[in-house]
């Protein structure tokens, strides 16, 4: 596999403002995997998109279109087969600093208490324990979990576990927050509450967010920009800018606004085709 030697400097590097550290440029990104059978499988091809500093960007696409793969390349957990990602003006070559990941599964440490889980971020950066504890207690208060410090994850409800994950992901004040269907497993009511809380925290810290979801309503409610990916191998199909005013306020009420419905309709038209195609692919494979 060849990695083209493109100049590692992203266009934004010339401007050089402090905010630019949170800019994500994905350029011509392709990722191929070797399947267990020995065949090459192209997960994503030629994905290019830019997330401005402090922007909330959602990626929507049919199942298996390589959304998670895209995120893994941004975090530096995997290396692209072609193309590159740069964060700030720095090309991603290994684990990028200042990034937090939130998965659909809780990814909490079951053997650590709520406090211990939230403390992990600062501890891994070498923060002294007393200071990390203070910081973690403050974050637990922000996500409304004061008094639950000594519980273990299995003693909490799904929504509470999500809050812990959120505090753990944000405690280091990341410049970039990668979210892989974080609320996918929650019930509808809890999901709406968590979306509201996420927006609040995001307004405070303003990291750049890449947010993967299947839920079109969720994408439109939360983001500034919605990226539609094609069915496998995934690439960028359409990009929609969401011009709903910020702060968005009540995530339930916004769904009934005219502009919301209009945007949602446009995006669904674009997505529908891909979802149908992806379904035909899997149905064809099953037959």
């Amino acid at each position: 596999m060849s990695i083209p030697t493109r100049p590692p400097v992203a266009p934004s590097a010339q401007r050089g403002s402090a905010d630019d550290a949170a800019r994500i440029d994905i350029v011509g990104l392709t990722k191929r995997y070797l399947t267990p059978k020995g065949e090459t499988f192209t997960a994503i091809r030629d994905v290019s998109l830019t997330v401005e500093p402090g922007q909330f960007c959602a990626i929507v696409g049919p199942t298996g279109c390589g959304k998670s793969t895209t995120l893994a390349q941004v975090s530096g957990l995997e290396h692209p087969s072609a193309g590159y990602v740069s964060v700030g003006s720095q090309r991603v070559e290994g684990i990028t600093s200042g990034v937090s990941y939130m998965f659909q599964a809780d990814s909490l440490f079951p053997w650590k208490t709520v406090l211990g889980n939230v403390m992990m971020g600062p501890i891994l950066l070498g923060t002294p324990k007393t200071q990390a504890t203070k910081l973690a207690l403050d974050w637990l208060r922000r996500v409304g979990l004061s008094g639950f410090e000594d519980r273990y994850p299995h003693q909490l409800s799904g929504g509470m576990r999500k809050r812990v994950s959120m505090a753990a992901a944000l405690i280091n004040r990341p410049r970039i927050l990668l979210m892989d269907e974080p609320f996918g497993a929650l019930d509808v009511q809890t999901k709406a509450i968590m979306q509201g809380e996420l927006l609040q925290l995001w307004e405070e810290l303003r990291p750049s967010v890449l947010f993967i979801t299947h839920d079109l309503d969720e994408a439109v409610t939360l983001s500034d920009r919605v990226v539609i990916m094609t069915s496998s191998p995934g690439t960028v199909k359409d990009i929609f800018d969401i011009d709903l005013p910020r702060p968005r306020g009540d995530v339930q009420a916004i769904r009934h606004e005219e502009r919301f419905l209009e945007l949602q309709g446009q995006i669904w038209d674009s997505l529908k085709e891909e979802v149908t195609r992806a379904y035909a692919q899997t149905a064809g494979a099953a037959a």
Partner: protein
Amino acid sequence: MSAANVNVNGYYVIPPDEVDPAVSARRAKSRRTRWIWIGRAAVVIVVFGGWQWFTAVGWVDKFFFGQPTGIVDSLVHLFTVGTAFGTIWENLWVTVQEAFLGFLLGTVTGVVFGILLGSNRYLASVFSPYIKILNSIPRIVLGSIFFVAFGFGIFPKILLAAVLVFFVVFFNAFQGVREVDQNLIANVRVLGASPLQVARHVTIPSAMSWIIASLHTAFGFAIIGALVAEILGATRGIGLIISHAQGSFDPDTVFACMVIVAVFTLVAEYLITLLEHTLLKWRPPSRSEAQAI
């Protein structure tokens, strides 16, 4: 509901003509517990009563199979008079030491190798055929070699116990490391964890529940190792008393020694369970019935 069913604090109370479910549940539970204990006593009476009866009548020869009253006599004799090799306490202490040190040595090496090979694919591939070969040989026979090489002392017994313990713990530690949630590893790596931090915060704590689970079985093996090694050749120990009793056709003493070892093993099991509860207090309560037995 009528207002009569609400108490002063505003809570609903159970009307007098209805049975409180808490009361009936408590009654049912105490009834169940009583019958369980009656059942348990019945098992003891049938087994030991039958044994005593059969040997007393002569259907079974007590010369070969012993007799419950004989075992009790033998136990009394062991604790009051002692054995040909000193008091029973001295001998028990030797066996306990061997089993415990062997258990410790086997567990530590098993955990270290298990985690090392579990987290390093290259080392695992290099060593896997040898581990398989070593695991397939009858390790108890190594006792003879240890006896020849290291003599009558306590060391060869520790070694045999450790060899038996090692494989049990090793395989569990190995598996435990392999079962680590990859999401968790990805998560801490993104947060900037070094490989050592990944091991300390994720791999080892995650493998711990597998390792602890193996300790119950491992301790049983430690006792077997110590006893077999003593039977092969020793100057002290419960195994020696057993082999001496076997030589003098005294099944009652063999059974008496089994009782002593069983009591010791139960105590050790209890301690391991305590350790399990402290180390794994984060685990959700298990619904497994097998653990309750």
